[in-house]
């Protein structure tokens, strides 16, 4: 466990400090984008395409404009006047803001109505007449790659087919040879369906342009306000928007999970609308718009293979993937690899050879591809390896826990360089699995299962021993449109010893106002109650790349520790001056410097802070503040072992998670209460796609799962009482030894659940099931249908 170095009153690392943001939220005093009201504000609503692929023959706004309250209708032609009808995606692809010639997916933005109330705007949407001529629709990504398939991106010069990229990693020849030489090989097609983050707050913006000052202020549901500001300045520089005059305020955000990283057309239209009308504009999505048009997650078609010796030693891994990116590559993943961090596919095991290839494909679906509480394709990769391990165990007649224990990368092998090129920082995989097995009573469960099976009852036990990779990222490998993925913190100590901390990352519920204060409390010994943390306002916060991919603690958390240490270095000089000793004669304990061997001869950090403004040494600048921009030397690699126990109703196919033990290791822990909460939430968002959630399309591109009527999210009834435990293997390269935790459980949970369900049905000949494991799918498997 994380060692406590500070008292509860100081509240440094390892203390379950109550959250500073809670008092406003529990009183209904949060300030979300839809709560922002500006004088003279108009409302925007969007006309969307009913077709997945169609030519636009005409857009007639007359009736809408004649409706009381409607102030303007904005179309692609309006934006074209300002050359704002196209924008770059964060993956350096291009995307229509509003179309002129054709629409490329159902629910694509076609026009926007600006009106004096949200009701009048909605009326206006109904009155805009759009004439379409349907075009051939390409939905199946495999068909999209066939010769003769219609080329969708006719706007892209030189684009001759629907392939976006081909990416590979590993040694193909060595892998092929290992497969040829292996005693045992297994293969499995695995599809990870399209899903949606569905944060309870949808996306929205209030855009206000002051034409006299040239100032654009945006209250926006943004997980990356600084990066968004720079993109807006780059895209709209030619119409006079200049970066110093763009201010993005990302206030309280009602959940992000990656869905608030992309720049959606609606934001850009609202900005154009405030410039055109001269009035502040509010646009907040409806849930259906959010599910149907915003960035999705997953949609990975994998063919996964594993080679092993007959004693169970895993030798080689091979995965071929078709990634459906929809209309454009807007995946919002900042690594230099098109498939993100899929190279984590070798998981927790020391393969001798591995080869992965991914082809990105255009189809007539909304763009996206990353968002869903996961660091850039890690969930897909871990699902593949953890399913393969269980299939191998089944084929060899081995216990899946024993097979994992036999193969794990041993603790002494770290830092471990994987054959796919990642350098894992630290781990103790066997320790986590052993603890999970003890906590859940693994061997008793095996006995119980045997007895139940004899009685014809369906019970399954599933394991997942995952390795995560988070903390994007080292500047050599990570950028967004050239912006490197460092992050930042700025700390000011006031004369009375109270603190203002401003960070470059942005909370959407993670509790940054509390935990970043705890980092400073740990480093400087100032009580967390005296530390105010601010973020999300580009005019005041230092430049940062935002919160997603579990990067806040690994990157901005490190910057906060480093800035604190700069302050401590200066404080030491002041203390030496005040105590009239040399710096070398001083020792530090949280909250004070004291003369070695004379603990009474001391200056507290508060006394030093006061002196920094009232009695600082001659030749030294006054004040006590510091800034750090931290470029991480490597990613961090949290890990864990999960064990899931399911009971299945053989009559209905309904899966019930009876118990779920999650052992996580995220290195040193800042706030155990918050880490626990992150794991509970991550597990629930892992269970969701495993059992319930899916967005799919018919062959004409009509969406299934486009409202909460059909998109089934877990309620308190389906969600089990998660059990958790920890091991602690600090990151050796992180200043406070932390690794990040927000997404581990979303990565680790799905294969544990699928492995449990397949285990429950294995005696019926079931070898694999695709998620989501709906009652119908499970019932069919039970009945061999």
């Amino acid at each position, binding site marked *: 466990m994380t060692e406590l170095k500070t008292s509860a009153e100081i509240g440094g690392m390892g203390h379950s400090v109550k959250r500073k943001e809670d008092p406003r939220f529990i009183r209904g005093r949060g300030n979300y984008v839809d709560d922002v*009201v500006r004088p003279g504000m108009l409302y925007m609503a969007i006309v969307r395409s009913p077709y997945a692929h169609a030519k636009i023959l005409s857009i007639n706004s007359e009736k809408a404009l004649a409706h009381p309250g409607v102030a303007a209708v904005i179309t692609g032609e309006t934006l074209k006047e300002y050359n704002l009808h196209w924008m770059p995606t964060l993956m350096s692809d291009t995307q229509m803001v509003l179309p002129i010639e054709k629409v490329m997916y159902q629910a694509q933005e076609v026009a926007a109505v600006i009106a004096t109330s949200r009701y009048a705007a909605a009326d206006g949407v109904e009155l805009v007449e759009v004439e379409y001529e349907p075009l051939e629709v390409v939905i199946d990504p495999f068909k999209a790659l066939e010769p003769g398939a219609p080329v969708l991106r006719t706007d892209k010069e030189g684009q001759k087919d629907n392939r976006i990229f081909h990416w590979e990693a590993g040694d193909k020849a060595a892998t092929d040879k290992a497969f040829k030489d292996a005693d045992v090989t297994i293969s499995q097609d695995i599809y990870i369906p399209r899903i949606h983050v569905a944060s309870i707050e949808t996306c929205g913006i209030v855009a206000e342009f002051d034409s006299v000052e040239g100032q654009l202020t945006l209250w926006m549901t943004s997980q990356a306000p600084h990066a968004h500001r720079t993109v807006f300045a780059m895209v709209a520089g030619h119409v006079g928007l200049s970066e110093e005059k763009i201010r993005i305020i990302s206030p309280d955000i009602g959940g992000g999970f990656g869905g608030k990283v992309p720049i959606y057309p609606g934001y850009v239209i609202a900005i154009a609308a405030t410039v055109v009308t001269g009035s502040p504009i509010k646009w907040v999505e409806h849930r259906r718009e959010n599910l149907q048009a915003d960035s999705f997650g997953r949609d990975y078609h994998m063919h996964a293979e594993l080679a092993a010796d007959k004693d169970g030693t895993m030798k080689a891994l091979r995965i071929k993937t078709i990634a459906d990116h929809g209309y454009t590559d807007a995946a919002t993943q900042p690594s230099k690899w098109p498939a993100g961090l899929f190279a984590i596919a070798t998981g927790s095991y020391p393969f001798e050879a591995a080869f992965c290839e991914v082809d990105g494909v255009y189809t007539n679906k909304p763009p996206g591809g990353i968002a869903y509480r996961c660091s850039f394709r890690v969930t897909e990769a871990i699902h593949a390896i953890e399913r393969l391990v269980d299939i191998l165990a089944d084929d060899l007649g081995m216990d899946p826990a024993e097979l994992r224990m036999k193969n794990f990368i041993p603790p002494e092998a770290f830092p471990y360089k994987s054959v796919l090129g990642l350098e894992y920082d630290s781990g103790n995989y066997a320790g986590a699995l052993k603890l999970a097995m003890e906590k859940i009573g693994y061997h008793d469960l095996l006995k119980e299962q045997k007895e139940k099976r004899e009685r014809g009852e369906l019970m399954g036990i599933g394991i997942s021993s995952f390795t995560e990779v988070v903390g994007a990222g080292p500047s050599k490998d990570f950028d967004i449109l050239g912006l490197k993925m460092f992050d930042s913190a700025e700390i000011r100590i006031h004369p009375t010893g109270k603190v203002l901390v401003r960070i470059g990352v942005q909370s959407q519920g993670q509790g940054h106002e509390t935990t970043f204060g705890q980092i400073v409390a740990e480093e400087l010994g100032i009580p967390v109650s005296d530390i105010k943390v601010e973020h999300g306002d580009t005019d005041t916060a230092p430049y940062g790349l935002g919160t997603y991919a579990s990067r806040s603690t690994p990157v901005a958390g490190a910057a906060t520790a480093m800035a604190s240490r700069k302050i401590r270095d200066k404080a030491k000089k002041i203390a030496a001056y005040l105590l009239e000793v040399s710096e070398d004669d001083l020792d530090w304990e949280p909250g004070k410097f004291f003369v070695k061997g004379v603990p009474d001869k001391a200056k507290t950090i508060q006394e030093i802070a006061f002196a920094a403004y009232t009695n600082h040494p001659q030749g030294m600048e006054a004040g006590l503040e510091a800034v750090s921009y931290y470029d991480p030397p490597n990613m961090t690699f949290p890990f864990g072992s999960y064990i899931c126990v399911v009971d299945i109703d053989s009559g209905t196919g309904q899966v019930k998670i009876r118990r779920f033990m999650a052992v996580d290791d995220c290195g040193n822990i800042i706030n155990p209460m918050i880490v626990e*909460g992150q794991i509970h939430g991550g597990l629930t968002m892992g269970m969701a796609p495993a059992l319930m959630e899916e967005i799919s399309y018919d062959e004409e591109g009509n969406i299934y799962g486009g409202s909460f009527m059909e998109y089934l999210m877990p*309620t308190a009834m389906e969600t089990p009482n998660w059990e958790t435990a920890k091991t602690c293997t600090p990151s050796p390269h992180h200043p406070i030894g932390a690794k990040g935790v927000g997404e581990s459980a979303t990565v680790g949970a799905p294969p544990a659940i699928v492995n449990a369900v397949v285990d429950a049905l294995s005696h019926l000949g079931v070898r694999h099931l695709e998620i989501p494991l709906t009652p119908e799918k499970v019932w069919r498997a039970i009945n061999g249908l």
Partner: protein
Amino acid sequence: MGTQSISIKVNGVDQTGEVEPRLLLVHFIREDLGLTGTHIGCDTTHCGACTVILDGKAVKSCTVFTVQASGKEVLTIEGMTTNGELHPLQAGFMEEHGLQCGFCTPGMIMASHALLQENSNPTEEEIRFGISGNLCRCTGYVNIVKAVQYAANKI
């Protein structure tokens, strides 16, 4: 479009006005009264972020017309604190870490309030059923259940 007169007691205060018959109660609460603690998370009455108490019963205010609430009493999250003192449910959510982003929290607290009014000593299963009309994407519900248990023990 014509308007209709309404008179609604919200958090103990009489509110009167002229509203369009189609005005949803949630928009009246948020935009006409400026009580923005009640949130909107969907358009199909599934998420429960807009839950308020209408004449003692929890309702999703995105599916009630303002005119339907006329002559009735509404309690929102802003009315849960009395003389600056937190309601045990509010305290429970903070103590048990029953919230993260805070967006579902007001609706969750109001749904739990209605539950505890009907059943002051609910089992875990009854709590889970009682809040099953409210979606939370952050917490996984475990700590929300604990928060309601905390309040039930205090009331």
